[in-house]
């Protein structure tokens, strides 16, 4: 790389470090010489390493340093020296010697061992231990004293074998020295690094353009440092709409594009609207307590519609049906519950329509509730998508047409209908889509034509009502690769902030 180009991109910290590399190669030393703190120095060195001006080597070394007693002995002298210095050619008692040398008995005992081994001291057993200089031993200079004078901490690799012996001996003495593992970072310059140290590097480059420079015009005399723009930056994230609502917005748009109007309504509903109005018999297994959340109290029902629905269940009423032929219970109808499907909105919408408003098309995207324990594939509340077409001329072929269009907008170009059963539609069908990646048919939703028992009761006359719906769970978990659907409600902000936008 061109040396000039490299220099132009150098950060002010790098500019301070390079000149001192001529004589310093160890991190601590570089830090002192450049006047930067250790963190700044390290950052500058790492940037230079990225530029291939140098390589950083970090090695673990054993380092010897003085411990608490060692530091005391450095000032006061090592105990064995102090002991020798108070000995004379006459015997003196141990306690006298200890007092003169200002050593503890423990220190005297340790030092005595050393002096005896060196044969510079003699002892005699009396009532107390008696000590004197060995005859002929006029001087004793402890090697340890010389060792203590060294500049600690010391890298153990720089010690001679004699000094290593001293280290071993001192390790056995109480709080004398410490031997620790330390990391030492050193710099090895590359050819580029060597070249840089030989260059004149201007340390007065401009890092940031300021309003003051613009006002004064001083920018004209400045050299702007070139950034290393290929290096990457710390990530940030903006505020977001929750990912599930992004998918819901998209689906709502599809419906509007297809000419459907939105239905909304309460989550708290009567069993009458949620189930009876849809011709679900009151003893249907799906109505059992454990599937549905019930609330206390009794709902107020519209009397005329109630009697129509009651009659349809019991005898078929005017619908041409035999009905379910059982005694319809008002108490059952009046139960209050959390809606189990958005189809309750379709029922309420149909009930409010007049003949002259047809054909009409509606959709809903909304929460529904099931009395289930939470686990990785079950939620007690989730979003459901629902569409209905009230059109006297509609047929099953139209249902397939609408479904094909809807699912192609969802990203599935092929659909298939399979027979199924829902209490309120006849025919009833399951919708499979051909999964473009898994290359297989996947069940995605249910559909059908509302039974005459439903339509006649709610609308007041016969009319074909196409209907289809599905849960949002599959779409969301597939798009965001969620394996545990509780994640939709976990609200991990890191995940929400980083989640991909719904791009369909």
């Amino acid at each position, binding site marked *: 790389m061109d040396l000039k180009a490299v220099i132009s991109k150098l950060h002010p910290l790098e500019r301070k470090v390079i000149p001192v590399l001529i004589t310093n190669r160890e991190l601590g030393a570089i830090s002192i010489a450049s006047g930067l703190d250790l963190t700044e120095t390290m950052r500058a060195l790492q940037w230079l390493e990225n530029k291939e001006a140098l390589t950083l080597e970090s090695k673990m070394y054993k380092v010897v340093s003085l411990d608490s007693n060692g530091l005391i002995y450095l000032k006061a002298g090592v105990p064995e020296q102090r002991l020798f210095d108070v000995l004379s050619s006459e015997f003196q008692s141990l306690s006298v010697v200890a007092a003169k040398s200002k050593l503890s008995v423990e220190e005297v005992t340790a030092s005595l061992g050393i002096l005896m081994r060196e044969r510079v001291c003699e002892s005699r057993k009396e009532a107390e231990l008696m000590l004197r200089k060995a005859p002929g031993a006029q001087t004793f200079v402890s090697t340890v004293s010389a060792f203590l004078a060294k500049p600690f901490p010391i890298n153990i690799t720089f010690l001679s074998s004699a000094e290593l012996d001293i280290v071993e001996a001192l390790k056995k003495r109480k709080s004398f020295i410490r031997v620790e593992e330390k990391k030492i970072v050193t710099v090895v310059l590359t050819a580029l690094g060597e070249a840089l140290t030989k260059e004149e590097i201007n340390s007065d480059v401009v890092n940031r353009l300021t309003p003051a420079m613009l006002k004064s015009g001083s920018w004209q005399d400045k050299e702007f440092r070139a950034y290393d723009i290929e290096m990457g930056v710390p990530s940030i994230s903006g505020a977001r709409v929750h990912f599930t609502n992004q998918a819901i917005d998209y689906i709502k748009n599809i419906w509007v594009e297809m000419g459907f109007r939105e239905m909304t309504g309460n989550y708290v509903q009567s069993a009458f609207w949620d189930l009876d109005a849809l011709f679900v018999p009151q*003893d249907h297994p799906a109505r059992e307590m*454990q599937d549905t959340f019930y609330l206390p109290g009794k*709902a107020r029902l519209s009397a005329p519609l109630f009697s129509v629905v009651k009659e349809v269940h019991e005898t078929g009423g005017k619908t041409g049906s035999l009905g379910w032929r059982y005694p319809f219970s008002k108490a059952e109808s009046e139960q*209050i519950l959390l809606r189990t499907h958005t189809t309750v909105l379709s029922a309420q919408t149909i009930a409010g329509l007049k003949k002259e408003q047809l054909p009409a098309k509606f959709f809903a995207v909304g929460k529904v509730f099931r009395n289930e324990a939470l686990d990785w594939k079950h939620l007690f509340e989730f979003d459901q998508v629902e569409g209905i077409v009230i059109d006297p001329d509609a047929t099953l072929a139209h249902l*397939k047409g609408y479904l094909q269009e809807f699912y192609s907008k969802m990203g599935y170009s092929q659909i298939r209908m399979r*027979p199924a059963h829902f209490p309120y539609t006849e025919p009833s069908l399951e919708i499979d889509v051909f999964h473009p990646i898994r290359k297989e048919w996947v069940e995605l939703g249910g559909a059908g034509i509302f039974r*005459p028992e439903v339509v006649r009761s709610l609308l007041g006359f016969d009319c074909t009502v196409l209907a289809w719906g599905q849960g949002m769970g599959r779409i969301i978990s597939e798009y965001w690769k969620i394996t545990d659907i509780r994640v939709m409600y976990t609200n991990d902000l890191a995940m929400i902030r980083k989640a991909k936008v719904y791009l369909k």
Partner: protein
Amino acid sequence: MPSVTLNQKVVEKLLGKKLSLEDLKDRISMLGTDLDSISDGQIKVEIFPNRPDLLCEHGFGRALSSFIGSHKGIRLYKVVPSGHKVIVDPSVAMRPFTVCAIVRGLSITEEQLAELIQLQEKLATTHGRNRAKSAYGIYPLANISFPLRYVAMDPTTVSFQPLGFGHSMKASEVLELHPKGRAYAHLTKGWTKYPFFVDAKDSVLCMLPFTNSEDTGKVSVGTKELFLESSGTDLRNCQVALNIMVTALADMGGKVESLEVVYPAKSAKVKSGNNIGTIVTPDLRATTMKFDATYVEKVLGLKLKNTELVDLFARMGFVYSKGVVSIPCYRADILHPVDFVEDIAIAYGYENFKPVIPKIATIGEQDPFEKFISKLRVLCVGLGITEVVNYHLASRDGLSLFLESEDSKLVALKNAISEHNHLRQSILPGLLKTLSTNQHNEYPQEIFEVGRVFSFDSAFDCGVREDTALGVALCHEKADFTEIQQKVDALCVALGLQIRIKEMTHPSFITGRVGALFAEKKVIGFIGEVHPRVLTSAGVMMPVVVGHIDLRALYDICHM
């Protein structure tokens, strides 16, 4: 939806032609059952609740063989009188109806025994609503002495040996000792007497709705003649179940015989309401329903010739002739001519419908309030606030933070199985929970949520007031009242509104740092600095300021 495991060999033998595995799978799905798998000689399939006749190999094979065209048309079954009688006592008010049949000429194989057991069990759980509506018994005919009596008796006075037990016991002990007694005891709450079938020699055939007796009620391999009863609370339900079992046995080669079931005379006054006189069962005659052929075109958009229509009906096991359809005795699901239309669509093949988008002009539109909510979301995001989503259901403890309304207004669910057993009355507890679980993530954390909030209010038809609210929480070291006020101000300025703040008191906030929000002189919500006591109990170790706004009120003001 019941799942059954069918013996593949038995089903295939009934089909009348060989299908490849792929075709078999495809045809099973397109007939209208949810195929799970075919492997190891077993077909695992879910049967929709409207077709209990498909719950056994013979019923399933019968329908499939018609559908693939090898045995088209209605199956008719011959019934001859057996001369035997079953006397129904007026005392059986708790389960007033029974229908019975005799089938001879069998030699029950191991496969057939397995089929009967599965059919009986699956019918009882689905069609019989876990025996609440009807339950069934199959007995070897050999040990029974006619006439039988269907009678309710005090269980402390009756002893018999229940199925699977080596000794006789008091009927009252069955409830505690027999597994079926324990399983179905809830159906008999408040009963002092229980219905029994007892034969002419006073031996007990069964105690309903629990178990047969070991001596007279145990069918085994090689049994040649059977007695069947289907008993419960709904006569028609009992009849359909009996017909499904009897026709399956007839398809196994059995000869069906009828009995006279003697109910109290129509003139009799009985509590049980079963004074219907004598009936002869089983009744395997086809029933009829009128059908207007133009209905097919109206619903399915298919223009069919009469011969095509006749063929499609035949493929679903019906006979159609001159505007009348004959319905076999085992079909329980034909309530309305539309039920034929579905079968015609299935026979025609759902795969054969061509998609059509009609050229009708309708105007698409999002709900205006939902549109308003979408706009608010965009505004919040623009103010740097990220959306979160919490459950509408929460635990009582979770909701006690920020409890603004009285406890009595908090909506509790009657039967929630998890600790999420209340409807939230505010968005804020959920936001605090979100903040408490995100303390390892980067700050500032500025979050909002839009959702429904609930309170008891008898002014509403369902006794619950449902509002839509926006909750905002700002959480970082320097979060303060000024900041939340700024955000809410900015939001309202964007909506063309000016807000005013009036100091209020609320125990969940620092005194003097909580205020009601007014727009156009109407209260729309409040903002404040959350009290450290609340933060500590929520486990949030960072200052939080919040806002809570009633969106319907805000919408109404914006659209005045």
